[in-house]
């Protein structure tokens, strides 16, 4: 044959594969419990979790609140803490990147506080604020502020020096260079911080609720544990996972819209 046609394999669409893997995972999970490989007192099968889910939508027993109340409490705490950490962390990091005075004053304190896991603040927050919303907002704020400060700081520091020199040739003042040049060029890093901070906030929120609270998804998990109800534990975990993923997706969409011009 004088020539051969090479068949180019088309890549599988990326909708089929995720569905397949999730379905396989659920089936395997169901199977190991139903078949008795894992005793049902240790793990609830997905079918049972779904039943509890439908039940918990309207039934406050046995942990004291319906699912929506738990989710709403967690979301509220996360939202307030996350917003506060952005509100404080991003301007602080940006200022640390450009103004030497701010860097000199804040950096040492920040470096000392940074390695302390946010969860370690729980006992103190219980003393200070009790087990209500404020304490958890504080923990989340501590957790979220670290990536905000670091990313904003690095973003400003990475501003192309030639651009700064060029702005100087235009006679720009320090302040003009900071807010018209350093801040926009730091934006991709700052948006990276939005995602990282969200992950930090969400995981630490659940951690805080595990130890000190009376509602919330973390509390639901703890109660499931105390009552010996693996179905409730798993339901809490699934809700944490799904709502965290949805929040991440929303931030991702916002980021993509705002950064339209900077993407290359």
């Amino acid at each position, binding site marked *: 044959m004088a020539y051969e046609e090479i068949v180019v394999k088309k890549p599988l669409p990326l909708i089929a594969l995720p569905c397949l893997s999730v379905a396989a995972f659920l089936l395997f999970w169901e199977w190991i419990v139903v078949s008795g490989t894992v005793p049902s007192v240790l793990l609830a099968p997905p079918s049972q979790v779904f039943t509890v889910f439908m039940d918990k939508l309207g039934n406050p027993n046995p942990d004291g609140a319906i699912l929506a109340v738990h989710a709403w409490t967690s979301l509220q705490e996360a939202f307030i803490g996350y917003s506060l950490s952005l509100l404080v962390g991003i301007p602080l990091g940006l200022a640390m990147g450009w103004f030497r005075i701010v860097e000199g004053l804040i950096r040492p304190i920040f470096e000392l506080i940074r390695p302390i896991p946010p969860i370690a603040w729980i006992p103190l927050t219980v003393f200070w604020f009790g087990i209500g919303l404020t304490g958890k907002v504080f923990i989340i704020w501590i957790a979220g502020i670290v990536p905000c400060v670091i990313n904003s700081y690095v973003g400003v520091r990475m501003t192309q020096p*030639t651009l700064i020199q060029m702005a100087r*040739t235009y*006679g720009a003042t320090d302040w003009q260079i900071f807010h018209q040049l350093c801040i*926009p060029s730091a934006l991709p890093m700052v948006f990276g911080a939005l995602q990282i901070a969200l992950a930090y906030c969400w995981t630490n929120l659940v951690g805080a609720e595990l130890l000190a609270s009376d509602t919330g998804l973390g509390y639901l998990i703890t109660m499931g544990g105390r009552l010996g109800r693996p179905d409730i534990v798993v339901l809490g975990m699934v809700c944490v996972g799904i709502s965290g993923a949805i929040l991440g997706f929303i931030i991702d969409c916002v980021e993509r819209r705002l950064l339209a011009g900077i993407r290359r």
Partner: protein
Amino acid sequence: MNTPSSEPQLKIYCEDINKTFIQKGHMEVPVIRNISLEVEENEFLVVLGPGQCGKSTLLRIIAGLETPDTGYVALDGFPVTGPGPDRGLVFQGYMLFAWNTVMGNVEMGLKLRGVPKQERRAVAHHYIRLVGLEGFENHYPHQLSGGMKQRVGIARAYANSPKVMLLDEPFGQLDAQTRMFMQHETSRIWEHEKRTVIFVTNNIDEALFLADRIVLMEGKLPGRIKKEYIVNLPRPRDHENPDLLELRALITSETELVL
């Protein structure tokens, strides 16, 4: 200039400039030795030399981004002490503001100096049209080709109405055809709005095509001026012009390769 005398006006004057960089704390690298240079008003001066010959440093000193160890630079008789809007810079790496549109980039210098919006828009429009980017005002840099990006760079430098344009290997990242085309465009734009230009390049054909005068640098550090050539040929020039080819051979014979 309506003065009857055709006496050329001195625009830039460099007096015996020396510059040494300190590397790793103690190693001294002499970059520029005893360079004196005069550039006349509306002259197109090309500084020609291979990589690592100090030509970019010379340009940065004239721009005021570096200070010479000895000697000084004067613009219109006043010594240069730092960067200023009277010198417009165009860089090899485009250096556009990625978060700004073409319009935003071109008007940036005027905006930073507080020129009212309507006025700066009008100026920016004029230069966007001059460099042939009309209709692309709202495009972002990542949507443009390399040649178009550098047009934005040129328009941005022009928009500040600088007395001197300083171009540092502006077409170094372009492919050969685009580069040739941009040389034609540069020639056209310059003839349209004359400025004093100092254009640094390592490309001999680019120098021959654009220059009123070529300053040839030594091929190694420290940077010195080796020869100067006046190019008295009408524009737009033809790369195949026998006089140009003769000069090309002359310059080539002066250029040795040093590793």
